[in-house]
């Protein structure tokens, strides 16, 4: 059923559980067991809560009800026929039997029907071993078949390079259509033909035009929808699974990497663990393939006679140390600068700034800031409201969301999903202020205020100071802002989400005004990459120590000097634009870059870094910046190391190094680099080292005795000494997201153009996405930025 249009949505019956308040309860008896559940609960869920399994295919929590697969037929007292547990709402005193011979026969019959046209190609089917049909036949089905007729067959179809459809295997549960329509709001799939010949088709008839998120693949109970990158590659039980954190955008989705023979074969979140539940976007599900790229840097490079030549780790690190020390001694510590990354772990960032401040003796350290977290922290601290950070979980439970700037559908797919869930399942209201007609504004917003490009800050200023709106600011009707303010004044607990359009003083305005809204308004800043937030939190900033403590504050310096046993320079360092300017003017002689590509990001002219006496870059791939480097250090990717990252909403998560998934001996992967991390049977890219290992090795070259052997050791120090990071370690290591509570009064934003988003689309992710086959293989990646699917 084409459920995309609004008329269809009105009639779509939704489980009432999502709407009912939990106050009233109903008690019923299932298989002799008394069960008490909230009023409005579906029978299938009530049974689940009692530990009684009722099989089903078409039923899927939070999607509209189908009553199509008939697997969940149960016997209810006083009902003449068997009833579907997925569409029955429990009532007081209801007596249900799920194990009678009649029910068992019905299940057996349904499975017999399912298998009539279903090929028994389980030995070569991707889903074999994790197929819900296979499992159900094993548990409830008949041992033999009575079906003697010819099976219907169609050839497999390629919907896109990432999504394939094998019609005969399809049991038509319509989960794919519903997750695409209701969950993703993309509506790319529909049904053609009818009866036993019904088939799932893209609504563009022969190809997909969608976000390519692959949700349809993972939600498919059988092997009908298969992944373009995983199909026919492995048996699911051959893979080792490790839940880690996606390294692309700043939302912090859990992605479970399936690894075999030291190679990532697939990623998904089938166990629904993590803050994202079942959700993953195209990057989280397919975009990891850069890790396997053959273009990865795997040998340290050292420039000799103008040419980068292959070298050894020992030579590269020793040369780096010697050159930096020499330049520091000759030109002073201020002639050296450090640029950090938005993707490296908190532990790596913490060590990088420690290296800069204590070993290089400079506060010339910065990174590409994609959101102004500092200003948010300082505004909330000033307002004594540091309990008002909203998390990704809060977002999906919100009653009201105000989104200012950004295009989460492209830049923050999980945030967009959480907002859509809140609107669809909980009737939340979304208010959007944006200069573009972004999809959330078009599809979900109750009020959309369209402002002129860059007008978001002016608008917030008007709201905060109750100034009249400057003429020409609001483009879609002068009364829109009034309507917005009026509606927001009636909401409670609004979550205010904003992008890089608000920075510096505008965030101060926003917090000042936002806190006057009713209830417990909360805030979330949206920044680009996996650890943008962590980079700021860990003090990759010229004026800010870890935990938003000002470098200028003697107390703060003393605090870290005590921890590190070394002096911290007092003066504020240069920010990244000043560093790059000084590099071009020759004031900066040596530049240390970790996991960043400033030449591209800041669009430096050709030869801009040629006046540097020394440039060392730690990277995964050859980039515009590594091309200028004197020393290039091949770094390990997110899938080859452990450590924590902080998502854009401040949730701290453990990025876990995946198991190797097949007993490859260490000797086959080359010499073991250091003792820094337990590497036994974990993913390793021969020749590379994690930034943590590199930093520890460099520190050793400098003669420093840092007391860390692993990321965990560094994390313990962070927990003990960085304000806002005093979290409990065990839940973190077990894979839970733990909210941090940043507070502090960092120096104000030096200049507005230090904060800007990369405006990545669903299919780009800075430098690394250039090396992803999957992200570049889909036609949709060629659409202009902001395209609405």
């Amino acid at each position, binding site marked *: *059923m084409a459920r995309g249009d609004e008329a269809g949505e009105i*009639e779509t019956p939704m489980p009432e559980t999502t709407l009912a308040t939990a106050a009233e309860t109903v008690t019923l008896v299932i298989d002799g067991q008394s069960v008490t559940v909230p009023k409005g609960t579906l029978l299938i869920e009530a049974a689940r809560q009692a530990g009684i399994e009722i099989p089903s295919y078409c039923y899927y929590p939070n999607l509209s009800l189908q009553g199509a697969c008939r697997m969940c037929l149960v016997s209810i007292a006083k009902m003449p026929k068997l009833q579907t547990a997925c569409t029955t709402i429990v009532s007081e005193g209801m007596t249900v039997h799920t194990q009678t011979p009649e029910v068992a026969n*019905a299940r057996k*019959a349904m499975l017999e029907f399912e298998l009539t*046209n279903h090929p028994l190609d389980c030995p070569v089917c991707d889903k074999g071993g994790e197929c819900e049909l296979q499992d159900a036949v094993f548990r409830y089905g008949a041992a033999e078949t009575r079906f003697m007729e010819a099976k219907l067959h169609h050839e497999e179809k390629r919907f896109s390079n990432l999504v394939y459809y094998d019609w005969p295997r399809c049991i038509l549960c319509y989960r794919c259509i519903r997750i695409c329509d209701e969950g993703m709001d993309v509506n790319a799939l529909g049904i053609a033909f009818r*009866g036993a010949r019904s088939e799932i088709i893209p609504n563009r008839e022969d190809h997909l035009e969608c976000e390519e998120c692959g949700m349809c693949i993972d939600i498919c109970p059988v092997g009908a929808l298969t992944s373009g990158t995983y199909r026919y590659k492995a048996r699911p039980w051959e893979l080792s699974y490790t839940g880690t954190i996606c390294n692309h955008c700043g939302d912090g989705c859990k992605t479970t990497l399936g690894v075999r023979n030291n190679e990532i074969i697939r990623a998904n979140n089938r166990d629904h663990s993590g803050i994202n539940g079942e959700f993953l976007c195209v990057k989280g599900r397919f975009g990891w393939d850069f890790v396997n790229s053959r273009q990865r840097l795997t040998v340290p490079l050292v420039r000799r006679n103008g040419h980068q030549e292959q070298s050894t780790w020992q030579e590269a690190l020793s040369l780096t140390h010697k050159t930096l020390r020499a330049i520091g001694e000759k030109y002073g510590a201020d002639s050296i600068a450090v640029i950090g990354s938005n993707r490296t772990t908190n532990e790596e960032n913490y060590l990088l700034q420690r290296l800069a401040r204590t070993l290089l003796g400079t506060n010339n350290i910065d990174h590409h800031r994609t959101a102004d977290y500092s200003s948010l922290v300082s505004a909330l601290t000033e307002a004594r409201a540091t309990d008002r950070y909203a998390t990704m979980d809060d977002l999906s439970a919100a009653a009201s969301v105000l989104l200012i700037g950004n295009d989460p559908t492209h830049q923050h797919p999980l945030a967009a999903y959480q907002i859509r869930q809140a609107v669809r399942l909980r009737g939340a209201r979304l208010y959007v202020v944006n200069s573009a007609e972004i999809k959330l504004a078009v599809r979900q917003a109750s009020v959309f205020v369209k402002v002129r490009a860059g007008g978001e800050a002016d608008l917030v200023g008007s709201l905060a100071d109750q100034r009249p709106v400057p003429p020409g600011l609001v483009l879609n009707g002068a009364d829109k802002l009034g309507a917005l303010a009026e509606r927001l004044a009636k909401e409670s607990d609004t979550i205010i989400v904003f992008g890089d359009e608000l920075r510096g003083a505008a965030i101060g305005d926003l917090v000042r005004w936002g806190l006057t809204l009713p209830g417990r308004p909360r805030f979330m800043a949206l920044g680009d990459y996996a650890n943008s937030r962590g980079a700021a939190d860990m003090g990759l900033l010229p004026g800010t120590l870890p935990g938003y403590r000002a470098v200028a504050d003697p107390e703060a310096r003393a605090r870290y000097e005590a921890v590190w046993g070394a002096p911290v320079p007092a003066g504020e360092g240069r920010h990244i634009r000043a560093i790059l300017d000084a590099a071009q003017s020759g004031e900066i002689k040596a530049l240390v870059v970790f996991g960043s590509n400033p030449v591209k990001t800041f669009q430096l002219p050709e030869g801009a870094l040629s006046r540097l006496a020394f440039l060392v870059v730690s990277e995964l791939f050859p980039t515009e910046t590594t091309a200028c480097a004197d020393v290039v250090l091949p770094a390990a990717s997110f899938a080859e190391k452990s450590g924590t990252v902080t998502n854009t909403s401040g949730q701290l998560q453990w990025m876990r190094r995946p198991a190797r998934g097949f007993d490859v001996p260490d000797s086959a992967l080359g010499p073991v680099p250091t003792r820094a991390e337990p590497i036994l049977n974990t993913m390793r890219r021969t020749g590379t080292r994690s930034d943590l290992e590199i930093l520890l090795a460099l520190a050793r070259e400098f003669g420093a005795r840092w007391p860390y052997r692993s990321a965990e050791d560094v994390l313990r120090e962070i927990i003990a000494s960085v304000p806002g990071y005093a979290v409990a370690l065990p839940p973190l290591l077990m894979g839970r997201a733990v909210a941090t509570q940043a507070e502090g009064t960092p120096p104000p934003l030096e200049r507005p153009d230090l904060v800007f988003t990369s405006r990545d689309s669903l299919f780009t992710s800075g430098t690394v996405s250039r090396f992803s086959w999957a992200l570049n293989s889909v036609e949709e990646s060629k659409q202009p930025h902001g395209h609405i699917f």
Partner: protein
Amino acid sequence: MGDYESYMKGSPLEVKVITKRFGLANSTSIDVYLETDGYQALAKAFEMGPAAVISEVKNSGLRGRGGAGFNTGMKWSFVPKDTSKPKYIVCNADESEPGTCKDRPLMESDPHQLIEGIIIAGFAIGARQGYIYIRGEYRYLLDILDRAIAEAYGRGYLGRNILNSGFDFELATHTGAGAYECGEETALLNSLEGLRGYPRVKPPFPAVVGLYGCPTIVNNVETLCNVPAILRMGAEAYARLGTPKNGGTRLFCLSGHIRRPGVYELPMGFNLKRMIEEVGGGVPGGKALKAVIPGGSSCPVLAASEVDVAMDFESVARIGSMLGSGGVIIMDEDTCMVKALLRIEKFYAHESCGWCIPCREGTAWLKNLLQRFHDGGGTEQDPDTALDVSFNILGKTLCPLGDAAALPGISFIQKFRHEFEEHLKLGACPFERRAVAVT
């Protein structure tokens, strides 16, 4: 179009209530309709008020003529009174049940009677908009209905402030695209909304959540055509035409091996045997009666020995079949019951919408099995398998289409098992061999 007359010839045993204008010259025009009591019931309805109309229809014993036989007035009373949503009345003109052809002449010969019935129903439930959903294959009826609707608008029976009653009512036609499933009321509503014709999960029922999520009553053409007559005659007089729980008359469609096939309006409870012999003139060619399907292809078949039965809902149910849609299909002694069942299952396999598993896979399985069986490739297990497949469909589907496919399968195999055995023994269809032998 010449053969239409054959079923309008009628029989002296008929009681003409809703077919009384059949055969009149220009019977579709509003003038003829007005000359023959037209739109009088509407005026009466406005005098009575909605509640009285509903109770009058309830008391008349009128039961849905689409097949399920639910009390029409009762159905109307389920529409919530205190809702702010608009309400709709939808006429189900998706007549698709094999053997059924009664709604067609009603619309073809007397469209105003239907329109009046719809307006009264709309008035009773508080709807301001009605739709006539016509099956795709009846597209030509659109002209007749649209012309009649335009006439009604012209004379003030549709539109604003009808007959100065203060009641506004709009009516429009809509065609399906040729799907049996769209005769199921919730699938019809989806189709009417422009969605695929899939049935909806019930409850909620359309009376509460129907078209565009609003309270909606879906009634069959014949059901609505009875409404003006009920108001004109009064509930009691109308009810007396039939039996105590089955008010009024009913159109029966005699088809198959019958001398005078046609659509006949007979009192509810009319004896089936008499219907075949006296109304239809018996089985032609001096052949013996073998079987009768009493209410359209989805109803369990009756053996010749069972046909001495009153044609009302309860009596037919008592002998294990259904009154259904009034499509009486008569089969003589030369009919191959395997082939007859195959034909029926071909229909259901073709028409299964594909929404739910037992119907989607089961009907295709039955069709393929019976085809193979009839072609001589049967195995000893096949009749039992087909029976079991039918039972596995029965009562387990989302909408009644599954039951419609299962019931014939069960009854044909149970009552005519010996014919299946003969096919097995011969390795071919005995009836086709016999036919060859004769020529």
